[in-house]
């Protein structure tokens, strides 16, 4: 393990300036990924740049007109418990409950989970399905990048040198919407997803017809991916069981998984269709007005052997 130095920034500008002037930074917020990678010897920062003292960077705000803004330092525990997130972005709150254990959720930040860019990151399918955009600050000022273009591969992001993810912005949820995240994992806590699926659907004024849908798959490709072919089968169509099944089969075609300790590629491919089917089924029910208590959503969101 290398020995690193320690710096703190009080403002976003100060953080950017520090990284611009001195190479070898590793930003820390919750530190729950950084310390592990450092102890494994995988990351050898010259210095860690603690951004947790930057005021306001943990703010969560919601309005029906502008949607949800998540400061990069908002903890996973905040996503889990925030009443506006539970109500308007339920798949994100569900994903937060499926994330590690309470102690890690109290530390880990949404920005960290996004920047870690793991294909199995629990918040990523929900953020992608809700159309999240990344607000990035850097030496040239600020820019907005859709999450789809932010995660480039395992651990690879669109962040350029001296850039910092400062917030995530999610558009307002459409009316008559429902959503479910399901994490399929060997263990119910403290493990990452073998496969994760988030589906967000909204219904047209005409009963039983899909207006808009987004299906995001985790841990089955180098990044979290949208199942666009499956979405196209549903848009403007009536959401009967047969149609949902067809979409689920189409989503499985999008998966391009690998073998690893949590499952073979074949296992992952086989799990995608039933997970997509189930997320769509419950999302449609919610969109049709079924009030599923959050405790029940939390139970649906984790599918584990232990």
């Amino acid at each position, binding site marked *: 393990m290398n020995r690193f130095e320690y710096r703190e920034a009080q403002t976003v500008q100060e953080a950017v300036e520090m990284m611009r002037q001195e190479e070898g930074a590793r930003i820390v917020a919750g530190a729950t990924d950084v310390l592990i990678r450092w102890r494994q010897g995988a990351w050898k920062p010259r210095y860690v740049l603690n951004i947790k003292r930057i005021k306001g960077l943990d703010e969560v705000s919601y309005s029906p007109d502008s949607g949800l803004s998540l400061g990069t330092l908002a903890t996973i525990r905040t996503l889990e418990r925030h009443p506006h997130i539970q109500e308007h972005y339920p798949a994100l709150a569900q994903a937060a409950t499926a994330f590690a254990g*309470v102690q890690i959720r109290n530390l880990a930040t949404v920005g960290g989970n996004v920047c870690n860019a793991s294909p199995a990151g629990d918040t990523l399918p929900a953020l992608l399905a809700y159309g999240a955009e990344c607000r990035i600050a850097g030496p040239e000022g600020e820019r907005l990048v859709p999450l789809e273009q932010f995660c480039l591969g395992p651990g690879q992001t669109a962040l350029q040198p001296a850039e910092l993810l400062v917030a995530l912005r999610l558009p307002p949820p459409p009316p008559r919407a429902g959503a479910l995240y399901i994490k399929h994992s060997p263990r119910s806590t403290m493990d990452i997803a073998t496969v994760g699926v988030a589906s967000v659907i909204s219904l047209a004024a005409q009963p039983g017809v899909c207006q808009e849908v987004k299906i995001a798959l985790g841990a089955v490709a180098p990044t979290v991916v949208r199942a666009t072919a499956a979405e196209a089968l549903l848009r403007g169509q009536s959401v009967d069981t047969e149609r949902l099944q067809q979409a689920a089969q189409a989503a499985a075609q999008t998966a391009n998984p690998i073998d690893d300790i949590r499952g073979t590629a074949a296992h992952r491919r086989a799990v995608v269709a039933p997970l997509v089917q189930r997320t769509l089924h419950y999302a449609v029910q919610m969109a049709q007005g079924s009030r599923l208590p959050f405790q029940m959503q939390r139970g649906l969101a984790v599918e584990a052997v232990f």
Partner: protein
Amino acid sequence: MTHPLSLTINGESYTLLVEPYCSLLDMLRDELQLTGTKKGCDEGDCGACTVLMNGKTVTSCMVLALDARDKEITTVEGLRQGNTLHPVQAAFVQYGGVQCGFCTPGLIMSGVGLLLENPRPTEEEVRFAIGGNLCRCTGYAKVVQAILKAAETMQAQAS
């Protein structure tokens, strides 16, 4: 290069010099000899190092000591009042929530943290709250029972 750090641990103010890469866990154990907090995995998976930071449970192996500046830390040593065990500690003893004991401080801190947020948890909520604490001896049943009984005791004391 060491940096100065001021924080509160179990109600007492401390100022000390720590290395940038020192975890809160190593600082508690090695600098302050507060060895009640255990080091199990050192990667945030086992929960043996759970402490309260500003009233919330965290795995202290995943916290840089310097990040705890100006924060209030409670370790298992800080729970008792004089010679009286905290109700969660007492319930672990009474209901057999302890076997080898290594995970016990972490489980107790998770129980205390849960009851701070939710004084009347259901069994499911207790199990959910201790999901980040590994115990290889007890099978968890008596741990869950102890936390539920402690909640009852604390309710009775409060009323």
